[in-house]
């Protein structure tokens, strides 16, 4: 039996096939088809299975990650979406939170809402914060709004009412009315996504869900239909922002939960790789064709945020559209292999736009005319024109040279090598800034961290970045080029649901009503998570209670379980809160305590995926295949250095830089003075001479 992980990025689609019987992994990487993503996906699955002579009927699970959702938002390519909200609050999406994300920017702008003002409709209804009805829903007004929605040919609608987290009745009533009158119109209500107070954040979550739903739902349905037709009888799961997988039904209904799923899988892969080599404090860099993602892993766990932001205008919190979705804390920047280089004000600018897969970099010979980072890396000798994607795609070095000459070197009066180096250096500087935000800016010394470089382009740039940052150790893992797909296989199934339910907690509070509310929440989470898909397998239920002293506005997260609550009661919860509070802030006060949010996570653990030792094919050890000339600024020119095939590296072998290590999915560049050691899994650990 097999499991298959597929991650679709903006430029490449990565595949990892896991043979559960032998423990071997097979990798595959190909361009993402931009016209219809599904066409390429289907070809890729078919090709990979044929190559390894695997019958699709023996594949038990397919796990999928995609950035389709965030692409739709960033590029504003979603359907015509409307918002229905409480009377008086038409501008709920415009007013936002007023956060001045840059205190000194005189020309600061707020993010443009996904729903324009003319598509926001108010209806008479009102709740209080305790969930009491002040004004019932004006049904006649809903009729009027329905007519307008039809006239305007709205394709998706969001409903967000004030205080719906306390009482969802009005939102549900409107959803049901709309379902009767406009049965084909997808309706998203805020209380299905977030049970938290703070209306702008909840509305933003609701609207984004409505906005991507008509794109994600049909995509997943078509994928499912094709797989079934091809003979697939297993389960299809989709990666979510929280680093866990969800069922297709859940994700199709609540696509915001998976809006940034590819990068999350990359982070899970970095955790796995780090664990393999015993590194627990890790900076993970995932540099693909379109963007680079940076994430920080502390003591073996990726940092999480309770709120995600999509489509940030600048690299600062508060400049994007917020989502009440628990997520892995990632910084994403427009620095990928396909990032386009151009002259600007006498300097080289790289990105944030990418040539993607289509037309792609000039050297792909698919019609691309603007030079990219990949073109520069080819000119600099870092990439092998005859071994890209394992030789399945020839790269045209001459055209890359011409393109860089014409578009960058000539306008800036540079020779083509200097221009190519300039492109490489500028994109590195952009990544260094993001990596610094994750480390130095948080007071963490990069010299004590391990940089785990994944993505097709990550290993090409990593050692240079490490030098800039002062990182001492770089891990260039086996399968780096398809790490996100590998992360999919390693991830657990997971569904999080958070409810705001403000309660005073002290030793005298009876625990039964709380347990009752939590089991209701668990039932609701199970229903929303499509528990039916994993019948017979009860999930682990993790519970995190957000608690604070009465009067405070922010909480600390107190982990517990239903069993613990039952055994130790409310007094136990207060003790747990005091422990966490003291550990976080250093001291306690003698004040009453309250619980605010209750988060349940249903977790279905996945089997471990570790690379078996020398697990891919048991290839024979072999020395360097051939020499090649790579540009090194240290030598101010091209230097001949050995090229190794990663498949054939001997375990415990030592490689002295400069050297190039190739595999079918990525190319690693090891710099002069650096020393690399190969482990039994084929992972390469580089000791970086950052002080040279």
């Amino acid at each position, binding site marked *: 039996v097999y499991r298959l992980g597929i991650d679709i990025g903006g430029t490449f689609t990565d595949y990892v096939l896991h043979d559960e019987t032998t423990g071997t992994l097979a990798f595959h990487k190909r361009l993402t088809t931009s016209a219809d993503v599904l066409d390429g996906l289907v070809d890729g699955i078919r090709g990979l299975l044929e190559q390894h002579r695997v019958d699709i009927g023996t594949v038990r699970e397919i796990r999928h990650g995609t950035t389709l959702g965030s692409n739709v938002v960033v590029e504003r390519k979603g359907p015509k979406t409307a918002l229905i909200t409480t009377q*008086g*609050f*038409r*501008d*709920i999406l*415009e*007013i*936002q*939170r*007023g*956060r*001045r994300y*840059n*205190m*000194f*920017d*005189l*020309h*600061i*702008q*707020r993010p443009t809402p996904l729903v*324009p*003002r*003319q598509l926001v409709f108010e209806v008479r209804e009102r709740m*209080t*914060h305790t969930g009491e009805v*002040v004004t019932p829903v004006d049904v006649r007004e809903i009729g009027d709004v329905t007519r307008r929605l039809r006239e305007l040919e709205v394709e998706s609608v969001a409903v967000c009412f*004030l*205080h719906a*987290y306390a009482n969802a009745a009005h939102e549900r009533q409107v959803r049901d009315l709309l379902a009767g009158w406009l049965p084909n119109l997808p309706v998203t209500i805020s209380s299905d996504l977030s049970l938290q*107070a*703070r*209306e*702008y954040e909840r509305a933003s979550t609701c609207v984004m869900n409505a906005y991507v739903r008509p794109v994600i739902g049909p995509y997943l349905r078509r994928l499912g239909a094709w797989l079934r037709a091809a003979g697939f009888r297993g389960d299809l799961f989709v990666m979510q922002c929280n680093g866990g997988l969800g069922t297709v039904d859940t994700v199709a209904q609540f696509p915001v939960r998976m809006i940034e799923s590819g990068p999350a899988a990359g982070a899970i892969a970095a955790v796995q790789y780090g664990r393999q080599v015993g590194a627990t404090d890790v900076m993970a860099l995932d540099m693909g064709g379109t963007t680079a993602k940076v994430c920080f892993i502390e003591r073996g766990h990726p940092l999480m945020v309770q709120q995600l932001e999509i489509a940030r205008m600048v690299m600062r919190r508060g400049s994007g559209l917020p989502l009440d979705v628990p997520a892995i804390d990632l910084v994403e920047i427009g620095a990928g292999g396909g990032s386009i280089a151009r002259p600007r004000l006498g300097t080289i600018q790289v990105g944030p736009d990418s040539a993607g897969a289509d037309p792609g970099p000039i050297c792909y010979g698919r019609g691309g005319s603007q030079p990219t980072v990949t073109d520069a890396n080819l000119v600099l000798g870092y990439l092998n024109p005859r071994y890209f994607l394992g030789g399945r795609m020839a790269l045209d070095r001459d055209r890359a040279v011409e393109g860089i000459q014409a578009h960058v070197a000539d306008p800036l009066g540079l020779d083509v090598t200097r221009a190519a180096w300039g492109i490489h250096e500028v994109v590195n500087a952009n990544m260094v800034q993001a990596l*610094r935000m994750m480390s*130095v*800016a*948080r*007071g963490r*010394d*990069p*010299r004590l961290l391990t940089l785990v470089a994944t993505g097709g382009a990550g290993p090409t740039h990593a050692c240079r970045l490490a030098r800039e*940052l*002062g990182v001492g150790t770089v891990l260039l893992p086996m399968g780096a080029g398809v790490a996100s797909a590998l992360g999919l296989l390693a991830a657990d199934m997971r569904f999080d649901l958070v409810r705001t339910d*403000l309660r005073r907690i002290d030793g005298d509070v009876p625990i039964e009503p709380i347990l009752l509310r939590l089991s209701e929440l668990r039932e609701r989470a199970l229903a929303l998570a499509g528990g039916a898909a994993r019948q017979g397998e009860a999930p682990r239920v993790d519970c995190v209670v957000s608690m604070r*002293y009465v*009067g*405070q*506005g*922010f909480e*600390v997260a107190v982990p517990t379980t239903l069993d613990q609550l039952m055994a130790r009661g409310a007094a136990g919860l207060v003790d747990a809160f005091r422990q966490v509070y003291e550990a976080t*802030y*250093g*001291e306690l*006060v003698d*004040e009453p305590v309250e619980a605010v949010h209750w988060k349940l996570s249903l977790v279905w653990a996945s089997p471990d995926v570790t690379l078996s030792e020398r697990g891919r094919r048991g290839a024979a050890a072999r020395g360097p295949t051939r020499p090649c000339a790579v540009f090194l600024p240290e030598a101010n020119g091209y230097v001949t250095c050995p090229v190794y095939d990663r498949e054939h590296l001997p375990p415990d072998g030592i490689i002295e830089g400069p050297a190039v290590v190739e595999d079918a999915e990525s190319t690693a560049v090891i710099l002069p003075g650096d020393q690399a050691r190969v482990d039994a899994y084929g992972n390469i650990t580089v000791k970086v001479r*950052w002080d040279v």
Partner: protein
Amino acid sequence: VASLVDPVTLSVVWGGLVAAAEEAASTVQHTGYSEAVREGRDFSAGVFDIAGRLLAQVDIGPGHLGSMPFAVQHMLRYYPLETLAPGDAVYLNDLYMGSGHLPDVYCMVPVFFRELCVGFAVTCCHHVDVGGSAPGSQGVEGIVDHYQEGLRLLPVRVYHQGIPNPEVLRIIEGNVRLPHKVLGDLRAQRLGCLAAAHRMCGLLERYGADTVTACADEILDRSERAVREVIARIPPGRHEAEEYIDDCGRGTGPIRIRVAVEIQGTDLVFDFTGTDPQTASGLNSPLNFTRSYCYWVTKAITTQHVIPQNEGQMRPVRLVAPEGSFVNPRPPGGAGARALLNHRLAELLLHALAPAVPHLATGANSSFANPTFGGAAGPTGTPFVFYDVVVGGLGGFRGADGSECIAPVFSVELIPVEITEAMEPVRIERYALVTDSAGAGQYRGGCGIRKDIRVLCDGRFTNLADRHRFPAWGLFDGKPGALAATILNPDTPGETALHSKGSYHVKAGDLIRVQVAGAGGYGDPRLRDPAAVRRDVIEGLVSVEAARREYGVVLHPVTREVDVDGTRALRDRGERPETPGP
């Protein structure tokens, strides 16, 4: 000169100091009690070296930029270094030593590493109430000196060796309207300082005191150089501007603020000579507050956010502010309401600098409103103070319209309606952009905002607003925005216009409409792209009539398509718009 520290260590130490200040800020917000602190982020934090030099200040609370650098020195005059012990915390809210009004309380904690004091961690918070005549302690009317504005703390050691002094806390408890929130925020401030101190000690542990001190010198010198390098590129010159505040309460007249900004080599001199005398009200700008915005503007046109605030970046700035004037009042002048002036000072300074930095200049911003509603709610008469912030739009600038709902300088966040209603006896019934309020221009200003607040119990409403008389001016032929207004029970027989600084008794069920001004436009509105005018009309921000009247754009009344010929004819016929502004 070769640096004494290697670049990696310098960047880690610098990053670590900034992170220490940020951690203090995050701790204050997460352990704070009042909405202003928790949701509004109306506070700031900084870390200092042993000499009292500000090494890093978080990018929030610009109103504290001018006082933060001196806070530690004031404390040291009362508590010399040798008298301070680990675990001490000194509080201060004197408006002249502190940030310019009593609600802002400083908390200063000496940082000890291996039994030696090595620096200071400081937080400053806007407290929801510190007593005095008006709930919220920000009244304007009826104030003749700061003794009416609340409890005033000269530097006072509230914690000694980690033990709180219950007598002092009891004095505070007895003099503020919401002791639970105030005492909670005071605790939060200290926790914030402790978090920063912990970070600083971590840096010292890892790198040693000598290295950290060497880094501090480098940080300040490099920061100063960065500011001077940008100033050096601005043409030398002296630029003047003046601005009027509506008044300081019922029956008073406009207040003129005048400034001349001189670019002298790599120095910036802000000269306020010619500004009106200080007022006998709660509205004055103590020197530390005036200074804050001189620093703010300097950063906004030089290093911006790229270098977090520190003492080095303030070295090129000088102030000339006549004593006894509105921008440098003498004690015991009151200043509870000085928050109203924050972006008015900033935009005045930027207005003066407009000829020197025209690409950065903008039309005037909406003035924000900061009303408070206080009293006793419910059957038990629980005291409350509802402190609100209503933010309008930003002025237009070369290349784009001004945004709405982002404060012009300060970084307070708007308190969500759902949080407000859960905490305070009010119901928000409307919160909306105001049609036809934006100042017209080739790039229009941001719209005004209207918030309808239904009060659910009797209480006292203290207004704090402006631009009820003087609109937000436009720049380079841009037009002014609509005026602000505060109206009690609008659209009813009892409708009453409230004064921008008045204090009123209101009854349960009353509705108060707080509407802030529209922001000023930039450039001649007749040059505005008709498609942009049409978009505004479709979005409901500009009416069809205003499109015609203000922009000379004719739209079809039903399809709202642009009538190209009609528009050309109207625009050709039009006279040049009058130059607006005071």
